């Protein structure tokens, strides 16, 4: 296992990244990643830190009854579970469908560049 991994790494020239980092393909990858990850980070930070701040400073508000004895606080806690799971699936899908193909393009180019030298 370990040997096979090392072989696949050794085919690439040590300075292959110099071309890679400047390439248009790599910039496209970084842009695509930032466009999808930054909004998701904003959503979960606001959702979760918002809940923590309300739990500290708006205790009676979180006690507002929603369904039977269950209050707004427990509804927001449940919403945080749902938020985490939905974001996980969305991230996994975007990564597999959009980012991974872009990564492959960049790596293929680096391999080609590495052999050319």
């Amino acid at each position, binding site marked *: 296992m370990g040997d096979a991994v090392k072989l696949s*790494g050794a085919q690439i020239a040590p300075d292959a990244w110099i071309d890679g*980092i400047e390439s248009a393909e790599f910039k496209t*990858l970084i842009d695509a990643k930032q466009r999808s990850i930054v909004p998701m980070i904003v959503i979960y930070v606001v959702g979760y830190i918002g809940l923590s701040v309300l*739990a*500290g400073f708006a205790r*009676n508000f979180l006690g507002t009854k929603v369904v039977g*004895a269950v209050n707004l606080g*427990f509804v927001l806690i449940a919403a945080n579970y749902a938020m985490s799971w939905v974001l996980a699936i969305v991230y*996994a899908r975007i990564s597999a469908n959009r980012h*991974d193909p872009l990564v492959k393009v960049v790596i293929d180019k680096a391999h080609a560049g590495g052999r050319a030298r």
Partner: protein
Amino acid sequence: MNLITVAMFAIVLLISLGITAWAARRTRTTVDFYAAGKGLTAAQNGFALAGDWCSAAAFLGFTGLTALYGMDGALYAVGPLVAFCTVLFLIAEPLRNTGTYTIGDVIMYRMRQPPALAAAIVGTIVINLAYLIPQMAGAGVLIKLLFGFRYDVSVMLVGLGMIVYVAAGGMLATSWVQIIKAVLMLGAGAIVLFLALAGVGFDPLVFFASAEAKAGPNFLLPGNLLKNPFDEVSLGLGYMLGLAGLPHVMTRFYTVPDATTARRSVIWVMFLAGAFFACTTIFGVAAVHYLGPEALRVGNPGGNLTLPLLAQYLGGGKDTVGGQLMLGFVSAVAVATILAVVAGLTLATSGAVANDLYVNLFKKGKVEEHRQVMVARVTAVLVGVIATLLGILAEGVNVAVLVILAICIAASANFPVLVLSLFWRRFNTGGVVGGMGLGLISSVGLALIGPGYLGANAIWPLVNPTVVALPLGILGAVVGSLLAGRDPEHEKRFGEVTFRIQTGLRSNHP
């Protein structure tokens, strides 16, 4: 002593020792010892992550906190799931793409300077020991209770178990011990959930109404445990960022072949552990419904026996076979849980000492492969012995504060250093030392003068100082970087770092 517990625990122990013997024969190289040959699948690593991240504090603690303090317990339980969003979006794939065995590898890959590695080593060791000691002490109390051994004998038994797993079987044995424990834990959770819901016609709303009626109108409000509002915010911040700085969980991403598998293993753990965390909230209110708040307060310090007591009740009660069976099962799972977590912690600490300190810092990487493995095994034994001794010394000491401290240091010192190493061009060795130093000192200092340690005589109002220590850690990292001055060569190399983080190119080449 519950014979069923002993029998069930003996079965778990025999299976894990069998796995250790199998793993020991397959563990020859450093990549085997630290990273299970980088050959785990996404599902295997997902279960192992769940095994690593769900300590006894989660398995027993969250249920107990909810039963005793209502909503604050539920807030404790949801944070560890949200924490994996941080890991998924920012850490798991970059870590897998830049490091080999430890968090120190990532820092060293970026900085190439010994002081940066030394700071990372100190961070890992302090966090792991702060995490290990309460686990050892908790295991001592639990085994004493279950089997009737003396406290020090109980701690030594746990220490012996973890040393054998780690020193003989390395990451492969540790991973499978965690996978088995996760399966047992989720199985126990599913059985308890089914029985609890069956008692109320599968309507969990009954638990909330009944718990409020029995435990008082304030029970379902926040603030019953964390009186200071800033402690609620610290809890949130600590969890959200602290998990990503915990070395024993993060090193699990080195056990998979590539970043894609690392990512898929995070999705697995988010559903496995997340579902379990959600269940602990149901178990907590169900315990108040079935057993009543008075029964839970007697002889149940910190609420840690709530889940075993609930399981016993649901199995048929104290004097029935079903009750004994359920109590025995849940207790055996609790011991297995602690053993798996301390094994993971021992392995991560050995990595920091043997790989980072001895091989990379002292010997500059010039150590033969078989000697590295030998050093790693010997280190595992030493770390295990030290942890056992500290666990014995901790008898009767309030060690719960140490768990909070470990998470606080991970969030305030390790997390900023790790993230800035991965994503900030100007970050340098001065920043690593500044961030690690200020984050560590402010976390430890504020925790020691706070109510978690000094009780009523506290000089500082918060149990969990993350809300202050985290900004200080970030400040230390930024100011340290600026003071150290610019190094054009170093900043130029950041291009290579970014390229490798994003593509994983040469990721299995140190």
